[in-house]
């Protein structure tokens, strides 16, 4: 049985149609008009226990709304959600023990309490015994370096400190499923690395993770499954590596030769590849399909024609692929 299941999940927000200024507001009082905005449109999603799923999509695609529906914060307009077979509103208390949620844009820490005290309040709310609590904190401390921020007031935390503390808060009760909504937003590289390492340790312990991010570096090397949403609909749901194999087949080999080489000869030696001159006449770029030929074959072919000084291979990132999907260039599925 899947741990998270959504069937035809739909959320429609109703927004008042108001004209500009006070006049518009007054008019709205007498002639109430609304526009419906479909934020999530018949989403079917099924996540098995222990899976790590990346949920990506452009701004306003409905990512956060989906997370809020899957965690029971919002009531769907139609369709249904089950967490571990439970109804998120009817069995809210039980579901709360099984899920953890982090919204990168918003903290759950108390602004007027030190981090240690906020975590202690959560410990009591979730009914975690002290020994377990100490053990978990010690483990979080290893990766997140919590120790130094425990005595700091919520309002005095820097963004990176806050995110580390919030991650600990979201995972304190060892939830079976954790939703991470933009967990690296605004963080500097050093903190990002640390936070990503933490995700991996959480995943390796068997926690189901659903990660929403704009930063595609978060998902590469973390999730095996990729779900892409656009305008409230899922446009792709499948294996991340398969996407790369299918749409990121292209490799670019950059070469530098000792002397300018005749372009026509280079082209003739590599049918099926595309050879172009780069910024100087001794630098060339060779685009090829990695399933049609290997980088080794390309180098061998070129080495017979010119003296190679330097070579470098560029591999397109999943970022490029997803960007192309967003722009409508690629149609997945």
């Amino acid at each position, binding site marked *: 049985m899947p741990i998270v299941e959504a069937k035809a999940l739909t959320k429609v927000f109703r927004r008042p149609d108001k004209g500009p200024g006070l006049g518009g507001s007054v008019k709205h009082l007498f002639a109430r008009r609304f526009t419906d905005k479909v*934020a999530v449109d018949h989403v079917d999603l099924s996540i098995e226990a222990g899976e790590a799923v990346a949920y990506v999509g452009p701004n306003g695609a409905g990512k956060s709304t989906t997370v809020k529906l899957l965690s029971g914060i*919002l009531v769907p307009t139609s369709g249904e959600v089950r967490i571990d077979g439970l109804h998120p509103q009817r069995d809210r208390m039980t579901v709360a023990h099984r*899920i953890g*949620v982090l919204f990168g844009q*918003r903290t759950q820490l108390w602004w*007027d309490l030190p981090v240690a005290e906020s975590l202690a*309040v959560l410990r009591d709310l979730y009914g975690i015994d002290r020994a377990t609590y100490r053990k978990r904190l010690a483990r979080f401390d290893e990766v997140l370096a919590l120790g130094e921020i425990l005595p700091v007031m919520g309002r005095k935390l820097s963004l990176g400190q806050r995110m580390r503390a919030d991650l600990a808060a979201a995972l304190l009760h060892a939830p079976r499923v954790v939703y991470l909504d933009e967990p690296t937003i605004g963080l500097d590289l050093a903190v990002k690395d640390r936070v990503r390492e933490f995700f991996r340790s959480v995943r390796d312990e068997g926690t189901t993770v659903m990660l929403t991010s704009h930063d595609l570096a978060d998902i590469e090397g973390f999730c095996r499954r990729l779900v892409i949403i656009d305008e409230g609909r899922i446009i792709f749901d499948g294996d991340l590596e398969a996407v790369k194999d299918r749409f990121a087949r292209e490799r670019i080999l950059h070469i530098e030769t000792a002397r300018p080489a005749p372009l026509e000869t280079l082209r003739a030696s590599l049918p099926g590849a595309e050879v172009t001159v780069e910024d100087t006449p001794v630098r060339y770029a060779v685009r090829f399909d990695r399933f049609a030929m290997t980088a080794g074959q390309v180098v061998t072919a070129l080495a017979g024609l010119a003296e190679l000084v330097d070579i470098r291979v560029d591999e397109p990132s999943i970022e490029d692929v997803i960007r192309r999907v967003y722009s409508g260039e690629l149609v997945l599925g």
Partner: protein
Amino acid sequence: MRTPRLYLRLLGAHFRSMLEYEADFVILALATVLMQVVNIVFLAALFAKVPDVHGWTFWSVLIMFGAVALAEGFCSLFFDGMWSLAWQINRGDLDYFLVRPYPVALQSSSANVGINGLSNIVMGGIMIGTGLAHADIPWTPWRALLGVILLISSVVIKLSINLATNAVSFWLSSPTPMFAFAMHQVGDLARFPLSVYPVALKAVLGAVLPFAFISFFPTAYLLDTGQSRWLGLITPLVAAYCAGAAALVFKRGLRRYESAGN
């Protein structure tokens, strides 16, 4: 017992950080005492002109003033966060409340400690005590117990009205609790004998928003004053009804919650 214990835990967390602002604490407490003194001066001036209002003397009206102050005091001291509900809804603070294993309404109401409630409780207690001392009541253990039950019921009614009127914020989009505040002002009318008001207002205070059960009816029953004194006996039932209705309104409202940032 877990729920009330955790409630005090949540409140206590805020209480400690609030004590950092000692000056605020003292000023607020003094301001509240002053407000109640003004109320008493006003009452004394009124009753200097008339000996009684429909059979109600200065001392009996003082008990009603005390009951309202006491109920309000409890609400501010322990449930002041309710008044932040509109703001919490607007900012999307309920997102995290909804994923924690604790009642959402109680997470909201524990978000703030109204320290002025403390002086209202003390002043209200003094007013009720003084008023009762001047009344000619044949005290029996049963009557004393009933008095305590009526007092608890009146606090529950005030609390329920606060919760229900603040929960209206789920339907309105204003970030301030204007509706609840207006209703709170209406409640001040219940400090005077209901018999002085026209029928429509009696119906509002007695049934629609039963503020009269916080002060008038229970006091009328205890003092054996007025025409419909038996109504004071149903105060606990009214309290149960109000609590149920408020919980229902809140629950319905919560289903409409749309979070922020959409």
